[in-house]
């Protein structure tokens, strides 16, 4: 791997930038691997990287049906936070934030993690009570959070309409100062480059069509580029998990929905944090290019169409224009959707499956970008040891029969 540094940039600059090498990718997969990861999103790529880096597996392939990062990883609004309510989630997501804090150095790739804080708005007395419960739960789990009054929200977010006549009143909120955003493509590319440097084959345009078994165990996959043998196969395909797992005869407790995002034309700096209004589902941040990156709630019916419908756009924009009147005349540049894999308790699944040698990482729903480092780390451990990583253990299939759900959706009202 060519290391990136200021010196390297200068050296290559003097040669007209003709000396840079391709970072990843092989056209044809080999006939067999020690482990195959299906899905070249953040979770699949991070899993392959940690399989090589933490567990010493060298003959690993990532099979991606399109291009790496072309699924939800490249479609998400990149909010990173660990403001969860329950100890299991707090431990998991804060581990992820801590890995993110070091990731640019770990991967020698600038993922542009900006810990600009993440502010949740409270629009009523009841919201304020909820926010104080929430912040207190975080404190008990050892995660920093501050409760904000309305004046402080106004100070941190000057463009907000916090006047007494505001249609959506601002009572205060909560801030997680270590929250923020990172560059989505860079997370995918950084993991891909570091994995490839450790011998992982990244094969794009390679769709997995089915599974092969021998004596009740997984023995390989059938792909659009031929059949490939492997004693361990790991699924990380987000919204397409149900469709793919069904080919191995496995049913999942997952529902697929479309989640949309929008980007405005670029403007001068107007917001240096992330704001989220759980009551309206609207949230946004400003990218380094100056665009407002805006998200909303789910289109609330099952969908595998990678496009959203207009009512969600309208609802999101209406809330935004009410709270931030100065954005009212901005134009949208782009709108898109990704298919997210939602589980009943809004918590992920990282586990073995009923087919020995077949593993799954899914259920990230609307919030799995922040979880990519921890998801990859714990999934790689689960695959290498054929036993769930301690942080991932609560997130297994057993909870759907034992009833030990980690019900973050109901408890925390987390919108994404």
């Amino acid at each position: 791997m060519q290391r990136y540094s200021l010196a390297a940039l200068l050296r290559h600059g003097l040669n007209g930038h003709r000396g840079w090498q391709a970072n990843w990718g092989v056209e044809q997969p080999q006939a067999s691997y020690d482990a195959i990861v299906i899905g070249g999103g953040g979770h699949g790529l991070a899993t392959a990287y940690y399989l090589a880096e933490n567990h010493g597996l060298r003959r690993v392939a990532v099979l991606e049906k399109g291009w790496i990062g072309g699924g939800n990883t490249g479609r998400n609004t990149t909010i990173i936070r660990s403001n969860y309510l329950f100890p299991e989630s707090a431990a998991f997501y804060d581990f992820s934030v801590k890995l993110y804090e070091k990731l640019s150095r770990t991967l020698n790739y600038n993922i542009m993690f900006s810990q600009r804080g993440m502010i949740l708005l409270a629009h009523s007395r009841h919201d304020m009570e909820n926010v104080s419960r929430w912040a207190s739960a975080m404190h008990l789990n050892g995660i920093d959070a501050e409760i904000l009054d309305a004046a402080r929200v106004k100070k941190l977010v000057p463009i907000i309409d916090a006047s007494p006549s505001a249609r959506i009143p601002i009572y205060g909120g909560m801030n997680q100062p270590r929250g923020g955003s990172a560059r989505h493509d860079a997370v995918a590319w950084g993991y891909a480059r570091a994995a490839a440097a450790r011998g992982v084959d990244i094969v794009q345009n390679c769709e997995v069509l089915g599974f092969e078994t021998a004596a009740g165990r997984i023995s390989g996959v059938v792909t659009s580029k031929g059949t490939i043998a492997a004693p361990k196969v790991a699924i990380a395909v987000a919204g397409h998990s149900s469709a793919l797992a069904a080919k191995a005869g496995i049913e999942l407790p997952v529902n697929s929905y479309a989640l949309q995002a929008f980007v405005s034309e670029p403007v001068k700096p107007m917001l240096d944090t992330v704001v989220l209004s759980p009551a309206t589902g609207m949230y946004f941040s400003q990218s380094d290019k100056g665009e407002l990156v805006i998200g909303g709630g789910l289109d609330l019916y099952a969908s595998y169409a990678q496009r959203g419908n207009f009512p969600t756009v309208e609802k999101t924009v209406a809330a935004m224009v009410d709270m931030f009147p100065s954005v009212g005349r901005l134009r949208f540049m782009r709108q898109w959707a990704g298919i997210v894999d939602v589980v009943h308790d809004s918590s992920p699944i990282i586990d073995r499956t009923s087919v020995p040698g077949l593993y799954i990482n899914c259920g990230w729903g609307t919030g799995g970008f922040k979880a990519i480092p921890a998801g990859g780390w714990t999934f790689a451990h689960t695959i290498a040891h054929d036993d769930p990583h301690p942080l991932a253990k609560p997130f297994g299939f057993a909870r759907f029969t034992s009833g030990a759900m980690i019900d973050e959706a109901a408890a925390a009202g987390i919108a994404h």
Partner: protein
Amino acid sequence: MLLLDCPFCGVRPEIEFACGGRSHVQRPGPPEQVSDEQWSAYLFFQPNPKGLLRERWRHVVGCGLWFNVERDTVTHAVTQVYEMGAAPAETTP
């Protein structure tokens, strides 16, 4: 915008409706004879097809009644609408 044909009110835009999820999910019973695995299958492990799905919708801001819709989850094309308690027509995909 999805357009749904309420059997009672006619064609209306999706903002008038709420989706209630899959239809024809049978509750197992009697309760004392149902195992944890059966409850789990009933509550959580239901098909999530990429293709035809039969689901319940409610005309929330219209007649307030529930009805069934068969819809393709990729194209969003509605292939049939039928009342609660009725059996769907067999679909030729």
